[in-house]
């Protein structure tokens, strides 16, 4: 096996806060200190980590810090991590959109990066003209596009409109066309950032299938960033977990995903969570044989003046409700400090990503949706094993409480 990508001591710093006003004097100062007097750059203080919640001392943030890894030719590597962990920065550096603050990246072979579908599409041009334009932007030669034009048009499924200006396309159609161009790139290394989040389910499946072909049949190297764990598991054999700008884990994809999921529930769950008069002490997943149960331990904070209802709803990534369940918390129980255990069986869920909402209702002559909070839930089945497993993830990067406050209906 030979290496396709070798990354050594790679770091990238960003300046946060205001850039652009009154910087002439600072730019001059910086130039004077670093170039003329040969000292270390005062605006790049070392030793701070990329932690979005903790306020650092300087206004420079290290999006990536001393990253080292190697990727072998033909590998499909999934890059996972929370929002702001540095995934996109890594992809930007690999695709040369911006340059590193320090360190090197060595690459063997042509790189095509898809940080966005349809970059450079011009609304006034026809589909055909845009295939040529977008293909050229992505690094294809005209001859190459000539050769593949039929295939691209065929894959996109918009033959009828190929000589119509793209501004008359539906957004789905232009995405299809754009992905079709990208799917026919002939580079040895393909870098893909969550572009699959667009298009309908059928087309997403088609894209994933195409990318699978690219990696397994054609032996090309793929780097794939996504929050969709099942897509990553389908496509990638290896995974890189990035936490706060550093590599936490690099290895088998299953291992990486489970580390990601556990790291998430440790880091981002700030229990106890307060929801109105009720406090959620902890959320637990229990697995016993064929039963899968998600349980919430709640404690009442105040003496309740009315009945409480807890509702658990499970939705798909597209917000379709797959499951809803409500349970009355009896009025007699919530004297201050008493515990309510709320359980729900989730065995029926398919192998996919779900969102879980827990809502607290109170009942006093009318229903009032008091508070809701959102959990991310991923159910996946490891390729090798037979054991089902749930991981709790927060899709927003942090837990959000009190999403709805104003919804009310009369009984």
């Amino acid at each position, binding site marked *: 096996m*030979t290496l396709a990508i070798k990354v050594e001591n790679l770091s990238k710093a960003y300046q946060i806060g205001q850039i652009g006003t009154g910087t002439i004097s600072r730019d001059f100062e910086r130039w004077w200190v670093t170039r003329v007097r040969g000292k270390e750059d005062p605006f790049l203080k070392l030793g701070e980590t990329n932690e979005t919640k903790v306020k650092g001392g300087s206004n420079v943030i290290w999006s990536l810090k001393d990253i080292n890894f190697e990727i072998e030719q033909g590998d499909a590597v999934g890059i996972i991590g929370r929002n702001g962990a540095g995934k996109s920065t890594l992809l930007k550096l690999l695709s040369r959109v911006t340059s590193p603050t320090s360190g090197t990246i060595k690459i063997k*072979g042509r790189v095509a990066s898809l940080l966005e579908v349809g970059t450079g599409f011009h609304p*006034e041009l026809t589909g055909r003209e845009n295939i040529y334009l977008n293909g050229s932007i992505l690094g294809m030669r005209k001859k190459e596009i000539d050769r593949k034009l039929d295939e691209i048009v065929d894959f996109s499924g918009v033959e009828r409109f190929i000589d119509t200006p793209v501004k008359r396309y539906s957004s789905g159609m232009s995405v299809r066309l754009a992905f079709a161009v990208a799917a026919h790139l002939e580079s040895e290394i393909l870098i893909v950032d969550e572009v699959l989040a667009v298009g309908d389910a059928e087309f997403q499946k088609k894209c994933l299938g195409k990318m699978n072909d690219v990696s397994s049949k054609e032996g090309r190297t793929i780097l794939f960033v996504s929050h969709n764990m099942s897509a990553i598991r389908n496509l990638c054999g290896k995974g890189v977990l990035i936490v706060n700008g550093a590599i936490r884990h690099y290895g088998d994809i299953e291992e990486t995903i489970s580390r990601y999921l556990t790291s998430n529930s440790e880091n981002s769950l700030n229990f106890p969570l307060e929801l109105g008069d009720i406090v959620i002490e902890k959320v637990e997943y229990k697995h016993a044989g064929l039963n899968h149960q998600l349980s919430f331990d709640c404690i009442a904070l105040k003496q309740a003046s009315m009945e409480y209802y807890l509702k658990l709803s499970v939705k798909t990534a597209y917000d379709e409700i797959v499951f809803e369940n409500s349970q009355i918390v009896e009025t007699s129980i919530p004297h201050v400090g008493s515990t309510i255990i709320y359980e729900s069986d989730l065995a029926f869920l398919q192998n996919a990503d779900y969102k879980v909402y827990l809502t607290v209702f109170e009942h006093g002559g009318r229903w009032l949706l008091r508070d809701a909070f959102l959990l991310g839930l991923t159910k996946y089945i490891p390729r090798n094993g037979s054991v089902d497993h749930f991981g709790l993830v927060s899709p927003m990067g942090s837990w959000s409480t009190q999403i709805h406050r104003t919804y009310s209906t009369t009984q």
Partner: protein
Amino acid sequence: MQSIADESESWDLVIERRSSLFDLKLSEVWLYRDLLLMFVKRDFVSFYKQTILGPLWFFIQPLFTTIIFTFVFGNLAGLSTDGLPQPLFYLAGITAWNYFADCITKTSTVFKDNANIFGKVYFPRLIMPLSIVTSNLVRFGVQMLLFLAVMAYFAAIGAEFRITSAILLFPVLILMMAFLGLGLGLIITAMTTKYRDLSFLVTFGVQLLMYMTTVIYPLSAAPVQYRQLIGLNPMTGIIEAFRYAFLGKGEFSAWSLGYSAAVTLAILILGLAFFNKTERNFVDTV
């Protein structure tokens, strides 16, 4: 692991923090030449899509400007045109000046206008300004046809002008205008990613610069004490040479053209260096 590292020391691409200021990656630009042509085609086609007059718009602007100039500067102000027919004199100046002005104004916003593309895909950034200069060249070519047609008309009615052997320098003049516009545009666009103030200066600065150039008057008609000053403007030498080549009138000298060429070269080099430096990290600041 050691063996892997050893056998793959031949990398196709090494990404590092600094590359040389003058490393223009021209071989890479050449590899992407198809992209340059695509951008030119895009600019040309999208320019007249959904217009009634279509490509005719390329003629309308210089034609109307000439009419206005003839009326204001020729008839009302009575400025000298070196004995040349007024429309011909103004059209020559406008055609050449427009090319230069378009090159500056369009390249000066190249980072701002393409921030979205530049932030998502890598290709040699120089392709973008080069494509702008090239699409303007197409426009300039079309406007030259208009100029030649007007020349033919005035020749037919027996107006007094002559084409000189300096016309052989025409390609050189085009290159000089292109490079001067490109160089200045690159400097401005590189500076405006950080300091937006400059972008306000560009459009009206270019307009003011036109009056400092011999577009609406011949150098010979300028007051003696200002001639030196006007001559300092590198475009003056170029426009004078252009007029001399096609119409036989103008202060054409090897010295002034040589001066313009030297300034052009210096500005171009400066512009490329600025652009190269900005290009690597501008995505983070724009």
